[in-house]
């Protein structure tokens, strides 16, 4: 149980800098998810916390202890790897007990800890098999069990679910969440899957190109994305973004409708400013198939190019100002391709970004 602090942490490979001085404070027992596209430096950051990569500059501390140069074994951490990294020549039992055996704990203690972990993860019937004889999900559980056994200060997860099929992934996600509740420990979790991030995290850290773009609770990052990158990365389908210019309290979408500047942004724009209007498909709905709009909204016509019925709702693909735009239809009825519908855009839930900095204008 410990805090993890990253201060101005830099990672360079020769001349190539992959992590650009990030700052991050992770609280005791907090479940933090690092998320971002591949190559954003999230795994590197995790591996620096683990001590598997040396840091080039800055400082990392676990608990109150600076661990910059400490080897992994002295950091009291556990890690679950993407490929599980089970020891192929050891049985499940040996895999689970390995770290305790290395620490020269008495055998009974090892047995007890291993049994306990096996209980938690329902591994008891596979204890004498070797990893080669286990299924993907079972291996995943062994990998997690191995991490639990040590009672570490911090759990590190490096994309642990990416090798599982969709169904198993959902199931394991729940188990990890439960696990966190049971073992109450600091967890740093890396994934490129924003759904995983949203469902698991206490706080999400969104990274791009070695920088932290935004840190916040899942709802914060969803509802108030700091910039267009976060806006498109979090949430599915991604936020619609349309470029426009502010003119007299309205945003003129080039070759599209004029849309009033949404309330939260009204004092924050000046005439002639290049902006980007962002809204999620949940907030653009055909009239008659929409949620009741409480605040201001605007209406315009749009041709539907393609529709994807999902059952309770239908995803509609149209285009505005030459850009593809996604909308949702509640209580769906069949829509034929090319049909023109009247859409309502909920202005209270719109986002506005500066076109130059891409930062939110909120």
């Amino acid at each position, binding site marked *: 149980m410990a805090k993890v602090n990253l201060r101005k942490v830099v990672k360079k490979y020769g001349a190539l800098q992959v992590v650009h001085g990030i700052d991050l404070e992770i609280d005791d027992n907090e479940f933090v998810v690092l998320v971002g596209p591949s190559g954003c430096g999230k795994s590197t950051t995790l591996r620096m916390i*683990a*001590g*598997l990569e040396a840091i080039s500059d800055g400082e990392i501390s676990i608990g109150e202890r600076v661990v910059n140069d400490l*080897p*992994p*074994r002295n950091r009291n*951490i*556990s*890690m679950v*790897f*993407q*490929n*599980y*990294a*089970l*020891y*192929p*020549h050891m049985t499940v039992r040996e895999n689970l007990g*390995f*770290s305790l055996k*290395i*620490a020269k704990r008495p055998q009974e203690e090892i047995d007890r800890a291993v049994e306990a972990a096996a209980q938690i993860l329902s591994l008891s019937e596979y204890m004498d098999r*070797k*990893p*080669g*004889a286990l299924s993907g999900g079972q291996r995943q559980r062994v990998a997690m069990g*191995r991490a639990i056994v*040590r009672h570490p200060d911090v759990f*590190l997860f490096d994309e642990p679910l990416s090798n599982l099929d969709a169904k198993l992934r959902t199931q394991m996600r729940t188990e990890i969440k439960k696990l966190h509740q049971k073992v109450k420990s600091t967890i740093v979790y890396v994934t490129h899957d924003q759904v995983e991030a949203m469902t698991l995290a206490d706080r999400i850290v969104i990274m791009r190109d070695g920088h932290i773009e935004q840190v916040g609770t899942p709802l914060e990052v969803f509802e108030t994305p700091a910039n267009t990158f976060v806006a498109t990365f979090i949430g599915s389908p991604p936020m619609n973004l349309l470029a426009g210019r502010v003119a007299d309290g309205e945003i003129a979408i080039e070759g599209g409708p004029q849309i009033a500047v949404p309330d939260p942004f009204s004092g924050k724009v000046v005439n002639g400013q290049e902006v980007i209007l962002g809204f999620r498909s949940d907030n653009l709905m055909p009239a008659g198939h929409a949620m009741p709009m409480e605040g201001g909204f605007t209406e315009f016509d749009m041709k539907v190019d393609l529709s994807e019925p999902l059952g309770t709702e239908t995803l509609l693909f149209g285009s505005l100002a030459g850009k593809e735009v996604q909308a949702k239809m509640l209580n769906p009825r069949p829509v034929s391709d090319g049909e023109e519908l009247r859409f309502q855009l909920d202005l209270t839930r719109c986002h506005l970004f500066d076109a130059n900095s891409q930062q939110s204008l909120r």
Partner: protein
Amino acid sequence: MSRFRPPPWFVLLLPAIIILSAVVLIPLLLSLYSSFTPYRLTRPETLYKWIGTYNYEKAIESAHFWAAFGRTILLLTIALNLEMLMGLGLALLVNKVTYGQRTLRTVMMFPMMFSPILVGFQFKFIFNDNVGLVNNALQSLGLSNVAIPWLVDGQLAFFSILVAEMWSSTSVFAILILAGLFAVPRDPIEAAKVDGCTPWQSFRHITLPYIMPFIYIALAIRSLDVARAYDIVQIMTNGGPARRTELLWTLIGRTGYVDAKMGYANAMGYISIFLAIFFTIYFFRKLNAARSELGMAG
């Protein structure tokens, strides 16, 4: 028209089987036959005189033969183990290098370019007691003021041969084990580090089991090739002095070609073939065990 059509695997193996029979099996049968005759190179007619197991009995009763036999096993055991350890060390050292590794690997294989016979001459001169490199160096550095008889003293001669043999063959181990190290996945090693292993512990518990198959492959290959040491020993000491470094191969070579007693030499040769076969099968077994340990059998 029911013509026999051999299965495809047989057709594919046929060239190998034919060439090995022609070059190894037939000559071997010939020498097996001659081991039951008093065959003498200089008197071809002796090839047709059957004397049963006389040569074998003579070999089995010969103290010199068993001394050479024991010494050969001793040399093999020590050499193979030391070469394995040194090769392992070398591979680990090279594996850690990140820049210029390709060159280092080539350098590491340098001794493999040396024909064993050349290695023999080379170390014969290096260990020469009077003008040899080693004694010269020791004397020039003031570490010794006597001419150490490297190739004469029983233990030293054995040691010198061992050094030459190791110099020429450690590379084979190193390159095979290095290949093994390349094949070790990174994850389990990192997992071990995180699990609290010291570098030695992660080597001992993770890396080593992974490269064990490679080590056995190297041992098997080398045990197949050990007779190559014949050239080295023959040039360096030829079994002498006073039979102190006599190995099976030098004994057989001298009996067969210098004394011309081919029948007797072949009988001893057959006994030594069993030795080679034993070593080989032993390492193959170990190899398979190490593989199934990692779940790689089949």
